[in-house]
């Protein structure tokens, strides 16, 4: 469904962020994109959804294909119409709109009757019952978890085939993280939505994903089935924090580091 081939992204004409990244998201799957901060996860997602332009970044090499078409010439609006939507990092809700109005913005690209949209709204509320409770309050005043649900729900309103989900777990309580990932799984199973998931929380991401890519320094350094990655020693050590003898207490982490990370 989505394939990214060897792309290079440069910001501001000078800062090279992605250096030949390739990945693929098959139809109906959840793919996780793992990596440290600054590895280029968000940039990859934005390159796909064509939001880079607004940040003075551009794809200088390689190609991205969604559903058989080159993404490069499509506006974000066109992409959403075709079923590829991004949920941005940091829960960008429309603060001054109500929850329901927020959801309705998701239907912007759809040319359907009011009743069809009302139906869609109901369906979204079944996935996110919490949103229904708060539907007429201003989105700016809802909690972090509700905002995260709101942005996913908003994306859902556009009837996407694929959602690019950026850091859904950031700053959320463990219970909520589980809840959100459960919803992701549900949507994947019942609605057939594919997910490309950029996530710091390797542990939970690999639990829900089918496949994973590990990104470091703008390059894919490792990829494989989620179950395989979970067993991989390096991943265990650097991303899951379970070394050879099980989980280390954070108090006991040694005062030196095995590997110098780039700064």
């Amino acid at each position, binding site marked *: 469904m989505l394939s990214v081939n060897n792309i290079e992204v440069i910001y501001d004409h000078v800062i090279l962020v992605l250096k030949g990244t390739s990945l693929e998201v098959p139809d109906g799957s959840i793919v996780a994109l793992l990596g440290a*901060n*600054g590895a280029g996860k968000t940039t990859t997602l934005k390159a796909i959804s064509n939001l880079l332009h607004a940040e003075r970044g551009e794809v200088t090499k390689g190609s991205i294909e969604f559903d058989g078409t080159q993404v490069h010439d499509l506006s974000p609006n066109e992409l959403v119409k075709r079923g590829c939507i991004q949920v941005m990092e940091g829960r960008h809700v429309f603060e001054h709109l109500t929850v329901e109005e927020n959801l309705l913005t998701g239907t912007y690209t759809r040319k359907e009757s009011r009743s069809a949209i009302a139906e869609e709204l109901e369906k979204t509320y079944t996935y996110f019952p919490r949103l229904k409770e708060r539907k007429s309050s201003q989105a700016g*005043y809802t909690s972090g978890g509700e905002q995260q649900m709101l942005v996913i729900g908003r994306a859902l309103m556009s009837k996407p085939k694929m959602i690019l989900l950026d850091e859904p777990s950031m700053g959320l309580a*463990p*219970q*909520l993280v589980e809840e959100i990932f459960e919803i992701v799984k549900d949507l994947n199973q019942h609605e057939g939505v594919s997910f490309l998931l950029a996530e710091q929380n390797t542990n939970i991401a690999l639990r829900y994903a089918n496949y994973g890519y590990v990104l470091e320094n703008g390059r894919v350094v490792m990829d494989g089935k989620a179950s395989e990655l979970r067993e991989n020693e390096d991943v265990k050590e650097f991303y899951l924090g379970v070394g050879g003898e099980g989980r280390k207490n954070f*108090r006991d982490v040694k005062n030196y580091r095995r590997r110098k*990370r780039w700064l």
Partner: protein
Amino acid sequence: MSAENNTGDVLLSVDHISLAFGGVKALTDINFEIRKKEIFAIIGPNGAGKTSMLNVINGFYHPQDGEIHFKGLHRKQMRPHEAAVQGIARTFQNVALFKGMSTLNNIMAGRNLKMKANLFWQALYYGPARKEEMENRKFVEDIIDFLEIQAIRRTPVGKLPYGLQKRVELGRALAMEPELLLLDEPMAGMNIEEKQDMCRFILDINEQYGTTIVLIEHDMGVVMDLSERLIVLDYGRKIAEGNPDEIRGNQAVIDAYLGVAHTN
């Protein structure tokens, strides 16, 4: 309980604090004490009022009821910069660095309160102004060394990756030489390795400088390992208080927050 716990005297105590925004209750009748040199954690679901609590402590919000006692002084209201003068520093949930400034300048800004040279000398950049600039620069360089961010000294922080920004923010708070350091989700969005680094910094700060630390964090591994005592908030109320082991087993906490008994 305080009798058997020997961490030290009470540094800050929160007395029946209630806070509301236009009718919506954010905090209801909160009480707790923080002792000198301990690492104290506040946990709870999103929207439980954790950040509001920090905002009350450092004077950004003014509670309708209750009082805060800090270093023996008690107060109902104060301006944030007064809190800073008294030695309270903090970091933010969404990094609140000065994006247009370099790492060095961000941390130097933290020294603001320690610098006194008047406008005249600053305009000339000579005499006392130059001298204090150098002294504080040295102090800041120590922090930079400590946090291992030498390589980004001159980089505008807006261009740094998130994890490093968090570290710079910690550096800025440290530059204030605080007695009480409030950390709001310092590990959010970090991978294990970065979290390990951050934990090490927090522990070192606590040990080396004897700084009292209040921590808000969602990673239960981190919270349980680092904190000596913690309280749990839910819907603006305190539902539990105790050491990590007590909290782990507390049914109310499990229901409201942890979901299942926590294993990583």
